[in-house]
């Protein structure tokens, strides 16, 4: 594969002898797959060659992330985000007021329930009815306002809906990230994942080693997903902070003075369905996973 890539790159760069070039072009005519591969490499080269455009994309991505809150009513006259914070603040205040008043209502009812309710329900209620009335009083308090409900958006067809619900089907995006090879230059994970059935639920154990330059209190997050594409990356099953422990008697590994750390995730999930699962290790505050792995729970 590596040779093929080098060949394609040499061909695209015009970095081939006349004889090699002719042979390669003949192969291209006979092999549509090779042609598709060459075209893809050409497109990638064209897309990423403009470093100015790459820098602009990076800036736009960062700026865009600052405008990250769902807006329901953005008035065009004021700065966008200030309004959002204003609404969120208002919402929080209302919520607090509502919770306080609700607590007071409830405690009022509990402390003085006999007189108040008696006057309300004098005629036809015995004590057991009074209790159920308290319940319904609580239920009738309006739900807190939700941001999402305030903006009904027409449903748009979601790509994920078309994928299968088969819990053992592979998730193509996550599969593409699986790789036993070193993925980051700095962090090399060697992890194993197992599911052990216990009475309390399914015990997920992911353990192994991380080889890295010295970690200075850095934290990692490990996230577990099922195989359904609509859940990646927004809806993990599990998210845990990992604190790698330095392995004692550590000798620096190879050049660069790398050290070995042990890593362990040990969590019980109730009612874990049989299926294919994926896990990813993230560095704090980084969006890209450092490591991706998978495991199965058999049926």
């Amino acid at each position: 594969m590596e040779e093929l890539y080098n060949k394609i790159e040499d061909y695209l760069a015009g970095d081939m002898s006349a004889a090699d070039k002719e042979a390669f072009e003949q192969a291209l005519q006979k092999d549509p797959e090779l042609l598709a591969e060459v075209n893809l490499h050409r497109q990638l080269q064209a897309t990423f060659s403009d470093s100015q455009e790459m820098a602009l994309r990076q800036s736009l991505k960062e700026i865009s992330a600052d405008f990250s809150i769902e807006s329901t009513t953005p008035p065009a006259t004021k700065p966008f985000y200030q309004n959002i914070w204003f609404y969120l603040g208002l919402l929080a205040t209302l919520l607090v007021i509502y919770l306080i008043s609700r607590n007071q209502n409830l405690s009022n009812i509990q402390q003085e329930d006999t007189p108040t309710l008696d006057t309300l329900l004098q005629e036809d209620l015995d004590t057991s009815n009074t209790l159920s009335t308290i319940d319904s009083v609580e239920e009738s308090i309006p739900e807190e306002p939700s941001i999402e409900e305030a903006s009904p958006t027409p449903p748009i067809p979601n790509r994920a809906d078309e994928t299968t619900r088969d819990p053992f089907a592979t998730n193509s995006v996550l599969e593409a990230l699986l790789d036993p090879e070193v993925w980051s230059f700095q962090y090399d994970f060697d992890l194993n994942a197992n599911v052990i059935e216990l009475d309390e639920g399914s015990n997920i154990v992911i353990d192994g080693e991380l080889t890295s330059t010295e970690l200075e209190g850095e934290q990692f997050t490990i996230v577990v997903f099922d195989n359904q594409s609509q859940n990646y990356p927004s809806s993990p099953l599990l998210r845990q902070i990992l604190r790698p422990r330095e392995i004692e008697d550590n000798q620096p590994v190879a050049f660069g003075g790398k050290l070995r750390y042990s890593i362990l995730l040990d969590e019980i999930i109730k009612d874990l369905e049989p299926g294919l699962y994926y896990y990813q290790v993230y560095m704090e505050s980084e969006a890209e996973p450092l490591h991706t792995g998978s495991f199965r729970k058999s049926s």
Partner: protein
Amino acid sequence: MSKKGKHYIDAILQNDTRALRAMYQEYLPRISNFIRKNGGREADAKDVFQEALIVIYKKSQAPDFTLTSNFYTLLYGVCRNIWGNQLQKKSRTEVTLLDDYKYTSVPGVNELVEQAEEDKLFWDAFQQLGKDCQKLLQLFFAKVKMAEIVQKLGLSSVSYAKKKKFQCKERLVKLVKADQRFAELSQKGR
């Protein structure tokens, strides 16, 4: 060209983050209104907005480019085009957009929009790579010499850098191929 229009075009060409931020503040809510009116969400609006700025970047690089309308008219036209295309892909019937702005069509944008969709697919895959791979590939695609890449990234040797380059590129290719949009694009033929 209006002064403000020129200011914003310059911001795009020179990657002036302060001015770009101001542009987001001024126009994103309006574009977002338009997108949401037409079946999209806030996240769609941000994607479309970002792609539109890239399209404008490419368009304004042409030596004969001058901004003939005001900047928002150009931006709205490009966003409208991008979102219309995306909706059309999901629908079998002709899509009609609800406009909230007097719309004039922008000449010569269609091709760039198609290109932008392809670029977006590649860019999304690129974003899933690790930071180190991104840096390495960025230099590689910009045709920086391997020896220089080794120096810039503090790698141990040229052969190591080459191996990494291959691994990173292979992963990028895998991610692109795993994306459903790639299958759609290949089916459409080129």
